[in-house]
């Protein structure tokens, strides 16, 4: 038999216990991961629909679908939902929760109750955020810049509920990070030294460090802001003796590292996908692992590059620009190492791999356009234009979210025990890829030609400018509709697979890390006994098994741990 664990009764984590309460109060990391996944996808749907409304509004320069105030609320909600409810929890909390303990051969995370509490906090935070909609709305942008956000006459009434929600969501994120750090330190199985961990775990570990160190700063900042707004204590508002630029420093001290909370786990997924689906040992394991840590460290030192035009001193701008470039090096290393992994591999072009290749394409554009923005002279022109919008969508949406979708396809057979339709999977990926590039590539030109962000309309300017902006906006809107079709198609075949999909084998792709050695879906306790691991990127020990329709361990190769006794 191919798996290390077969449960005697044939039950798995999905049917181990029954009833809705057995899910809501479960301590099983797999169920918590699945509940996160469901909640994150629901939020992604909401944020995505708002994005389509934004694109429809900008189809014409007069943009008469919504009023200015309505539009300002729509883009604020789109940003806040996508950042705080979708991208930040997507990979660590949803996929990480499911995969991390199994990759470690553990029965669960180190603190299962804290893990459940994180999820409950997340749901509570999301509900409090909804409250903002019913207490006057929210129109500050997801950045809550002062003094706009503290001035009760300017910003709408939902600021305090929204701040509270982000504060709560922050704690959910901190607890998850803490849990993962302890789990990785304490629960690694025999044989798994630090440098034998799957790279996804290195990425999650680096991410968790950022979550634990940076998120409290956001919490404190938002509390200061709420206190200022509620009681008029002068911290950020110059009318009360405060400094609005101080807020930007505090905010970006969290929010820039938060960008790496989004992209690092995505890079971890890509390292897994490229290696497993190329059936070849990851190239340059240590460079990739250390580059994750390097990004996590440098990521703390570059926040000032969001503020090149804010009025901070020229010297600070020069220093922040210099450090910013240091982040580009570990990112470049990863891309080249992934390519080298594909070299002389045996590449299966199935859906997860297509998402990984899309990631490399899109992340290259997103990363390289970061050079234009890290460079002082050009950032002055590009700052707060659509060039920035295009850049961070290439990184946060096209890279982080597509990696998450790719990872979801990779682990879908493991999570649900069902195979999805590979044909429609590829079509869906293709539509999303084309739609994405059509939506966001024109925004680079839109921005370098001068179109500012967060504009509800653009008819008030010189006719030649308006005409050019309209052309690029229309391309972008068409792209967003193509992308929406791709996502709906994806949702369709994934749902279909749950009910009608073929049964998934334990190891459909030929992965070597431990999750592929337990059944699909895994039993409640993951492994009957703690497995011993070897090199998780050495795929030569696996072979295709026609009967299983998956990969199994070669008969003639002893398993790690058995070697010693043999």
């Amino acid at each position, binding site marked *: 038999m191919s798996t290390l664990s077969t449960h005697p009764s044939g039950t798995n984590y999905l049917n181990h216990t029954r009833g809705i309460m057995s899910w809501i109060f479960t301590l099983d990391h797999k169920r918590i991961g699945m509940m996160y996944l469901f909640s994150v996808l629901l939020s992604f749907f909401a944020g995505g629909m708002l994005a389509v409304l934004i694109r429809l509004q900008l189809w014409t320069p007069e943009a008469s679908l919504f009023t200015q105030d309505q539009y300002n609320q729509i883009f604020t909600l789109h940003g806040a939902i996508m950042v705080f409810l979708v991208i930040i929890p997507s990979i660590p909390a949803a996929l990480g929760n499911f995969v991390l303990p199994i990759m470690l051969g553990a029965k669960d995370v180190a603190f299962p109750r804290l893990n459940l509490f994180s999820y409950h906090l997340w749901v509570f935070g999301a509900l409090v955020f909804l409250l903002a909609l019913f207490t006057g709305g929210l129109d500050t942008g997801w950045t809550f810049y002062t003094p706009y956000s503290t*001035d009760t006459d*300017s910003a709408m009434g939902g600021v305090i509920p929204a701040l509270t929600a982000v504060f709560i969501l922050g704690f959910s994120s901190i607890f998850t990070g803490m849990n993962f750090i302890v789990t990785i330190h304490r629960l690694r199985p025999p044989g798994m030294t630090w440098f034998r961990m799957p790279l996804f775990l290195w990425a999650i570990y680096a991410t968790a460090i950022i979550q634990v160190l940076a998120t409290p700063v956001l919490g404190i900042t938002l509390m200061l802001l709420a206190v200022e707004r509620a009681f008029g204590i002068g911290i950020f508002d110059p009318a009360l003796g405060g400094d609005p630029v101080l807020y930007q420093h505090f905010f970006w001290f969290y929010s820039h590292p938060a960008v790496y909370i989004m992209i690092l786990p995505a890079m971890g997924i890509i390292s897994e996908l490229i290696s497993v689906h190329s059936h070849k040992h990851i190239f*340059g394991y240590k460079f990739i692992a250390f580059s994750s840590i390097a990004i996590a460290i440098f990521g703390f030192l570059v926040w000032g590059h969001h503020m090149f035009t804010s009025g901070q001193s020229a010297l600070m701008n020069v220093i922040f620009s210099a450090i910013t470039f240091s982040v580009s090096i570990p990112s470049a*290393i990863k891309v080249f190492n992934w390519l080298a992994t594909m070299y002389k591999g045996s590449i299966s072009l199935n859906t997860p791999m297509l998402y990984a290749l899309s990631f490399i*394409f899109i992340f*290259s554009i997103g990363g390289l356009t970061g050079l234009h923005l890290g460079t002082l*002279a050009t950032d002055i022109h590009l700052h707060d234009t659509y060039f920035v919008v295009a850049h961070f969508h290439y990184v946060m949406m096209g890279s982080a979210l597509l990696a998450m979708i790719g990872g979801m396809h990779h682990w879908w057979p493991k999570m649900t025990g069902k195979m999805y339709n590979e044909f429609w999977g590829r079509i869906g990926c293709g539509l999303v890829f084309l739609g994405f590039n059509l939506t966001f590539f024109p925004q680079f030109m839109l921005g370098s030609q*001068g179109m500012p962000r967060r504009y509800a309309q653009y008819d008030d300017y010189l006719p*030649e400018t308006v005409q*050019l902006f309209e052309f690029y906006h229309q391309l972008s809107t068409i792209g967003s509709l193509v992308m929406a079709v791709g996502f709906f198609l994806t949702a369709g075949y994934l749902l279909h697979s749950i009910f009608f999909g073929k049964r998934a084998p334990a190891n459909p792709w030929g992965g070597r890390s431990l999750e592929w050695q337990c059944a699909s879906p895994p039993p409640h306790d993951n492994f009957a006994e703690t497995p011993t691991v070897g090199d998780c990127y050495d795929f030569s020990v696996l072979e295709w098994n026609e009967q299983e329709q998956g990969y199994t361990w070669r008969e003639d190769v002893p398993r790690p741990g058995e070697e010693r006794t043999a």
Partner: protein
Amino acid sequence: MTMLMNLLYQTPFLATAAPRRGFWMPEQASTVSGEIDSIFMAITWISIFFFVLIVILMGYFMVKYRRVENHKTTSSVTHNTPLELTWTIIPLIIVIVIFYMGMTGYISLRSVPVDAYEIDVTAQKWGWTFEHPGGAIETETLTIPKGRPVRLTMASQDVIHSLFIPAFRVKQDVVPGRYTYLWFEASETGRYDLFCTEYCGTGHATMGAVVEVYEEDEFKQKIDELLRWIEDIEDDRLFVAGKRLYNRCVQCHSLDGSPGIGPSFRETHELWGEQRRLADGRTVTVDENYVKESIIYPAQDITEGYGNLMPSFRGQLRERELRALVQFIRHLDRFDDEGNLLEEWQ
């Protein structure tokens, strides 16, 4: 169909609509734009080189090493330190060069020549006020001379705004509680867009102006006109001047009676001499004094049903301009709902 025509017409490669714009950057109209653009293009070409390299390798590997049989074993190479150091060090050298170019370009953006022509800029929701050295004030346009450095000293009355002139490649946030500055030297005459690029609420998208660049002598003429125009209008026709000043009010106050962010001027006009109910329950008589006070001390009398949103215009309007605005509202029956002067008054 129109859409398709538009697409063809505006395809950047044909560039029929905008002869002076590049594919990436707008027209170069300031002394620094050439330098900024060459830095931008250098980075862009470096990016294109690496992007093409990555995509070609990826595409080639995808085809060449595509899995055709399920049993194929693969190379067992796990790393190659010299190779990996190569693709660490080469990008490192490249980004150091890019950083240096960006820094020198930035230093020229921040080094104001000593003889610069100084304009005071005030930003407020949702418009700009530009005050020239001689006292000339403008709002819809920023008139500047060609070939002379201009320094903008900027302050905000309320939230953070940001002044952006794409054709000049300059941008600077305008922060309440402190002065920020910006300089440029226009190298081409013409009309250019000026945007607000820091989100500032409802009217953010329409908080723009047009930069008008003139040759030196024509510029002097324009500034003279700015100083004189209101003096040239006879006292009994000051309401016509008020219509011109109304451009600064249009964001919030309509002329057709529909309520906006503030009460419509039509409604104020119709209440002339009568009582208006205020938010705090008091009433006030609508007259010359009330209108003037409301422009200078807007927080004093808030109309019922509206918020305390209007910034003060104290110091931004001269006495004669205030009178013109008061006359405009008082005699609004001489204008139609679009603000056109009725024929019998022309």
